[in-house]
């Protein structure tokens, strides 16, 4: 009977349909020494997929700096772990759900959020903050509105129900994402540093336990679906879309944390992509043991499920655990209290094989080490990205009106307020949100403490496209800067590498360049990589997306009451610019929005300067010398002061002294490593700056209800707010 499951004849075509190349097939045949069964073929196919094996990226990922005294656990586990003092650890990671979100925006985004939260709580952490980095196509593309509304509702739908505040993220639009949006979700969790759970299985004979929701035929690979049999309604094409059940996940979270408070768990692993396959293989591999699974014992949602389907299903809200012997009942009680399925579905063995049984009969048997180690790793050919043209600032024409240009920029899709989005996210639940979305970095307090975590996600893909190395550096630097602007000390990052087809040497060159730039910045800023995710093949009709290595960083601030934000608070204060303005105009927002040109080298990040300026800012904030602080990024000085004025509902005047650059260049250049401060202590700050060799200049004053550039070019705050706050709601209101 059980053999029926594997009755399907394995042909070279079927193997190819499973995405296994000829070369890989050779390796597979050597490992098995025989034709794989249908179930085994499915397992190889998912384990050796780009998604699970990182076959194109692994070689380069290994070059990222991952160490530092703060790092408890770097890449290789479900999420990265860093020490935040007091015996506590922050556990965090970012993950993409790009393709599913394009197919079904609500469920795709929702299950993305669910997946990343499981990665974090499987390690023993309670999630305390979520972020999301979104990239959509051009606003006038017919699908964009629908995608924005679905993705945002999905992220909110899942995170809100879980009771985890969504405190930050980023959202930009660019035509390169028209057919391939990006949905990257990040979760930060809090755990005791001495109570972190890993996936390594151990203890021959120990029970392997399945908990959570039942397994259905969700997300079983499209290509393989074609050859699978349907038991009913075969005319109805079965959707491969996964539907999230945030309520089940909330129960799973509480049940897992309750069980984790005791000592019965040896190892635990969420079932994410490739579900039961990757979780069991990973546990066995890490523990250098074997695992035997009794698939007929798996809680099933549908009748007639096959081993193939059970092993490949991507049903959500499930976990696999190895328990200490004899602790099953204690665990079962907890999961039953939370009304979740609980089943002992296997045992740890000493064979180092993954053995699958159905009613006692073997339906699959694969040696684990080669399944994992012999998985392909490619050093794909790559070419460096040709140098972009240098834009001479003197060649960039001045706008007819500076305030007019400013208004246009601040109301452009990429700069416009994303309030419409983050007001759909519960950013306050848990009662610890100290800095809400809309600022440089969000700040959440650690329950029961004065300290908090600052977090931000960043990437400027236009920079990365123009120069992957500088762009990669810049993404890390900007994240570090955003965290610094709140007064927090940056600790570590996660990342999501979203790129096109790695089989194209120019795309692979973007990937390699970005990794190099990121590495440099991480080292210079003591900001190691502790986790991450890679999403390749993001392209439609042969056109890749802009290379988008999203950086998600966290930092710690000892006393959240001292954390700084960008809102201007007092009139008649001095505005002090920290950092040097050289007048870099290439790849800037000004060039794109005002001149309609997307070209030119991106600004260079001088990492030593970056660090010096940032450390200086942090000291000023800590010394209480600053009343508002904002880093300068897209749109330069003018956009920064506008953000600060709008946030504080208080006007400001920038005095335009002749810098030799031209006013529009001084205002809109995107030189790096800069911050704008509002302060009543300008003298002291200038003095300190001089002593530390940090460039600092008084550039204006706070007050009034308008923004004034130079001697009289003024625009009311109300008008700016309208442009800035109005764009997205107006755009979405035309929903059709």
């Amino acid at each position, binding site marked *: 009977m059980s053999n029926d499951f594997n009755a399907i004849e394995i042909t070279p075509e079927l193997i190819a349909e499973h995405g296994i190349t000829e070369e890989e097939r050779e390796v597979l045949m050597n490992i098995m020494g025989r034709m794989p069964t249908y179930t085994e073929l499915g397992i190889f196919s998912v384990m050796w997929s780009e998604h699970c094996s990182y076959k194109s990226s692994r070689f380069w990922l290994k070059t990222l700096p991952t160490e530092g005294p703060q790092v408890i656990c770097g890449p290789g586990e479900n999420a990265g772990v860093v020490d935040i003092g007091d015996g506590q650890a922050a556990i965090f990671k970012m993950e993409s759900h790009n393709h599913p979100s394009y197919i079904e925006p609500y469920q795709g985004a929702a299950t993305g959020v669910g997946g990343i939260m499981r990665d974090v709580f499987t390690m023993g952490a309670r999630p305390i903050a979520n972020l999301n980095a979104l990239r959509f196509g051009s606003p006038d593309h017919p699908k964009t509105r629908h995608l924005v509304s679905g993705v945002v*509702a999905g992220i*909110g*739908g899942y995170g*809100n*129900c*879980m*009771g985890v505040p969504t405190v930050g993220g980023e959202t930009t639009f660019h035509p390169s994402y028209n057919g391939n949006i990006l949905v990257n979700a990040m979760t930060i969790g809090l755990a005791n540093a001495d109570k972190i759970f890993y996936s390594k299985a151990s203890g021959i004979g120990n029970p392997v336990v399945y908990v959570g929701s039942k397994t259905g035929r969700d997300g079983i690979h499209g290509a393989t679906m074609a050859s699978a049999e349907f038991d009913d309604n075969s005319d109805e094409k079965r959707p491969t879309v996964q539907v999230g*059940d*945030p*309520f*089940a996940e*909330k*129960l799973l979270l509480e049940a897992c944390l309750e069980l984790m408070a005791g000592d019965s768990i040896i190892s635990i692993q969420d079932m994410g992509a490739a579900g039961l396959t990757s979780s069991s293989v990973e546990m066995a591999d890490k523990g250098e043991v074997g695992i035997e699974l009794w698939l007929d014992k798996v809680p099933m949602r549908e009748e007639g499920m096959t081993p193939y389907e059970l092993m490949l299903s991507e049903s959500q809200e499930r976990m696999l655990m190895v328990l200490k012997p004899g602790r099953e009942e204690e665990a079962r009680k907890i999961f039953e209290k*939370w*009304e979740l399925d609980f089943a002992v579905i296997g045992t740890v063995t000493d064979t180092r094989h993954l053995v699958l049984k159905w009613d006692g009969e073997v339906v699959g048997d694969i040696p684990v080490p080669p399944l994992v180690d012999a998985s392909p790793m490619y050093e794909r050919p790559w070419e460096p990205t040709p140098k972009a043209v240098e834009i001479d600032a003197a060649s960039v024409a001045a706008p007819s009106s500076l305030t007019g240009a400013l208004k246009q920029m601040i109301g452009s899709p990429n700069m416009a307020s994303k309030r419409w989005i*983050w*007001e*759909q*996210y*519960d*950013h*306050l*639940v*848990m*009662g610890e*949100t*100290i800095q809400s979305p809309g600022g440089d970095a969000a700040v959440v*307090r650690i*329950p029961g403490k004065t300290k908090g975590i600052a977090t931000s996600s960043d990437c400027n893909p236009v920079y990365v496209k123009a120069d992957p190395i500088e762009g990669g550096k810049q993404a890390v630097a900007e994240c570090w800067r955003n965290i610094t602007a709140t007064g927090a000390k940056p600790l570590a990052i996660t990342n999501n590498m979203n790129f096109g087809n790695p089989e194209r040497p120019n795309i692979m060159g973007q990937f390699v360049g970005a990794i190099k730039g990121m590495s440099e910045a991480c080292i210079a800023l003591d900001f190691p990589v502790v986790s991450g995710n890679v999403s390749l093949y993001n392209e439609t009709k042969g056109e890749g997306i802009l290379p988008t290595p999203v950086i998600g960083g966290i930092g710690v601030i000892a006393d*959240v*009451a001292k954390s700084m934000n960008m809102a201007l608070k007092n009139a008649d204060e001095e505005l002090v610019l920290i950092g040097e303005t050289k007048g870099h105009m290439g790849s800037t927002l000004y060039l794109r929005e005002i001149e309609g040109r997307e070209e030119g080298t991106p600004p260079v990040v001088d990492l030593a300067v970056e660090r010096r300026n940032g450390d200086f800012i942090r000291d000023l904030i800590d010394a209480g010398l600053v009343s508002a602080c904002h880093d300068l990024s897209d749109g330069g000085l003018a956009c920064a002061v506008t953000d600060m004025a709008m946030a504080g509902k208080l006007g400001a005047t920038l005095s335009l002294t002749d810098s030799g650059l031209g006013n529009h260049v001084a205002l809109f250049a995107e030189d790096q490593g800069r911050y704008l401060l509002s302060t009543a202590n300008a003298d002291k700050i200038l003095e300190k700056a001089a002593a530390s060799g940090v460039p600092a200049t008084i550039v204006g004053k706070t007050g009034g209800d308008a923004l004034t550039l130079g001697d009289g070019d003024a625009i009311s705050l109300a008008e700016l707010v309208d442009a800035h706050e109005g764009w997205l709601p107006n755009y979405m209101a035309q929903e059709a």
Partner: protein
Amino acid sequence: MKSAVILFPGTNRENDAIAALEQASGSKPQLVWHGETELPKVDLIMIPGGFSYGDYLRSGAMAGKSPVMRAVADQAKAGVSIIGVCNGFQILTETHLLPGALMRNAHLKFICKRAALKIENAETRFTSKYDAGQVVKYPVAHHDGNYFADSETLDRLEGEGRVALRYCDDDGVVAPETNLNGSQRNIAGILNEKGNVLGMMPHPENAIDPLHGGIDGRGLFSSMVEALS
């Protein structure tokens, strides 16, 4: 003041509620699981926010039928004070301890922001520390906060001073533009006939710390402590 906080599967603002109750009363509330059929002897029962049963079917529907809610209803009859916030309000209407229903927000979107609220009745055990007409700011965070009742019921609520709070602007003006979810007559919170049960969509428990951006929510908790201790 002794208090209890009821927990359902999917409740998620319990810690926020506990923090507020503890700050105001100096003692930790007792936690009561949804399956309980008996409640501890307390002065106040709080049903916190969240997504009990995932908000599936209707928000608050399944929690409203749980064993513990029968006990809560008995306590309500006996005059014990009960406050339901957000999902708690939805549950209280589903249990019929409060009239009306909470429907999907008129704009259909979840909304999380600080909202201005007008204290309509300052002579209740929940609001005595405020002045009538005072404008306070609490956050809202809900998808189904659109209060509905037929006009007879609404007239009765108004006539009997049972509208506790309304959505308004910073100056206390109650208008269609300040109605952030489509609620009938801008209603944000109501009382039962006896005045011992309050349901409200906004979250006073997320406005008790200067670092929350304001402490307007404290007044509600200190009112209860004063009345119930």
